[in-house]
């Protein structure tokens, strides 16, 4: 039977940071990811990050990805790609399916003393007539095509959603040579940073607030050729008679993300619903440990935020896992965690961050109330 000290699931910023911390302390770390390359969504982020110098502001996402991969290699992290966790069983047993679709796949059972879940998030969908037509896709999917695969998903794009993803991806689609013919937002005003909105407005993209997509119309080949938009009322319902037809071959949906909790559910960790964090998320304490002992979480899987918060949470999870293995002194681990929580607080400030700090505190409090209290009652 294959045995490891720590299994980390998901090789994005959270999983890489967790693996690095755990391996640096001397643990045998196995990091698994279903994709062809490690790095999660970092390699499609070609813009410079915001924040303080401690968080590498001014550095592009893909450069942060390269740094993390370097560090992981130096620390001796073992990485399995094209590998998916498909089962979790009593006795710290995890089933991993390894191999590509259509090829030889094998299922390996691993006994891992600690598990860190850093599975990230998936994109939300907006449903309208024709939303399954080829040419309608997630904004993140379009971003992957242009920035990672260097292929345009289409030529004339209607972007739905004016949060930071919608705004940044619109700009990046233009950088790749696509024509963004409209940006649609159901709310009365733009959701993301004004600085991003100004960039695409300057480039001449028409921004329609209080509008929604009513229909994606396929052409003869079955793919999108026209998009119908309409104004919405105060209840976000389309107002009849305000429809407008736009010629476009692609609709990209930037309607937020939701935490990927499949693995958390496999491990039967206690969940809670949190709207601002994107949906159901696992309860965890300040060590990033879930209601299940020895199972930790980090990054977007604990609530949708951004790469830097994911990275810092990953560090905490990695440190806590090796602390419980006795590889770091509790005092030392606590000192490190306090420093990281301070940096996280700095990241969760300002008009967009403050709410996340409040919600994070609520999650920690709910863990104390429901998980710790329940254990004490036993």
């Amino acid at each position: 039977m294959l045995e490891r000290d720590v299994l980390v699931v998901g090789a994005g910023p959270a999983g890489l940071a967790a693996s690095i911390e755990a391996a640096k302390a001397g643990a045998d770390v196995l990091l698994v990811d279903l994709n062809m390359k490690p790095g999660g969504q970092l390699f499609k982020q070609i813009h410079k990050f915001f924040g303080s110098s401690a968080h590498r502001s001014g550095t592009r996402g893909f450069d942060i990805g390269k740094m993390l991969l370097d560090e992981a290699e130096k620390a001796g992290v073992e990485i399995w790609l094209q590998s998916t966790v498909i089962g979790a069983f009593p006795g710290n047993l995890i089933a991993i399916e390894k191999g590509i679709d259509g090829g030889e796949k094998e299922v390996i059972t691993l006994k891992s003393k600690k598990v860190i879940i850093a599975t990230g998030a998936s994109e939300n969908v907006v449903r309208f007539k024709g939303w399954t037509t080829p040419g309608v896709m997630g904004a993140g999917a379009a971003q992957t095509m242009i920035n990672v695969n260097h292929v345009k998903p289409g030529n004339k794009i209607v972007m739905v959603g004016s949060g930071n993803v919608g705004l940044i991806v619109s700009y990046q689609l233009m950088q790749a040579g696509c024509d963004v013919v409209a940006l649609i937002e159901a709310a009365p005003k733009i959701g993301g940073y004004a600085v991003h909105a100004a960039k695409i407005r300057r480039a001449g993209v028409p921004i329609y607030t209080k509008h929604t997509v009513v229909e994606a119309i396929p052409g003869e080949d079955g793919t999108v050729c026209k998009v119908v938009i309409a104004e919405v009322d105060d209840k976000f319902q389309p107002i009849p008679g305000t429809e407008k037809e736009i010629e476009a071959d692609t609709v990209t949906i930037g309607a937020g993300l939701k935490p990927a909790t499949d693995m958390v559910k496999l491990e039967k960790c206690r969940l809670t619903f949190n709207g601002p964090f994107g949906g159901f998320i696992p309860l965890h304490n300040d060590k990033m440990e879930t209601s299940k002992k020895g199972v930790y979480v980090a990054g977007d899987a604990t609530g949708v935020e951004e790469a830097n918060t994911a990275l810092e949470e990953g560090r905490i999870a990695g440190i806590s896992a090796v602390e419980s293995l006795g590889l770091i002194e509790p005092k030392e681990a606590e000192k490190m965690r306090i420093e990281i929580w301070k940096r996280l607080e700095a990241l969760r400030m300002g008009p967009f961050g403050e709410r996340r700090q409040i919600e994070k505190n609520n999650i920690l409090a709910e863990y104390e109330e429901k998980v710790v209290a329940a254990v004490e009652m036993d």
Partner: protein
Amino acid sequence: MCVRVEQHCILDVDKKEKKVKITVDGKEIEAYEGEPILAALLASGIKVNRYTVKKHEPRGLFCGIGQCSDCSMVVDGKANVRTCITPVKEGMVIMTQDGLK
């Protein structure tokens, strides 16, 4: 129609990988070794990957990262291959997936 990104102000988009040929529904197209099959198809203007089982509706790229299965095709005789996370190999024979099979 070429839809590859050929110029970029930040990214180096020059392909260094080997150019290979693959077959899609009997037609030969060019691809780069190791890139996702889906990317090679998009670069050749192919956007429909499969048809649904019950209603025979077309599906194509949706999530791009192996989560949704909408870009599944038949590759070298094997069905349900997620083309967004499966790399191109020289001489691959790819078919639009019609139903689950």
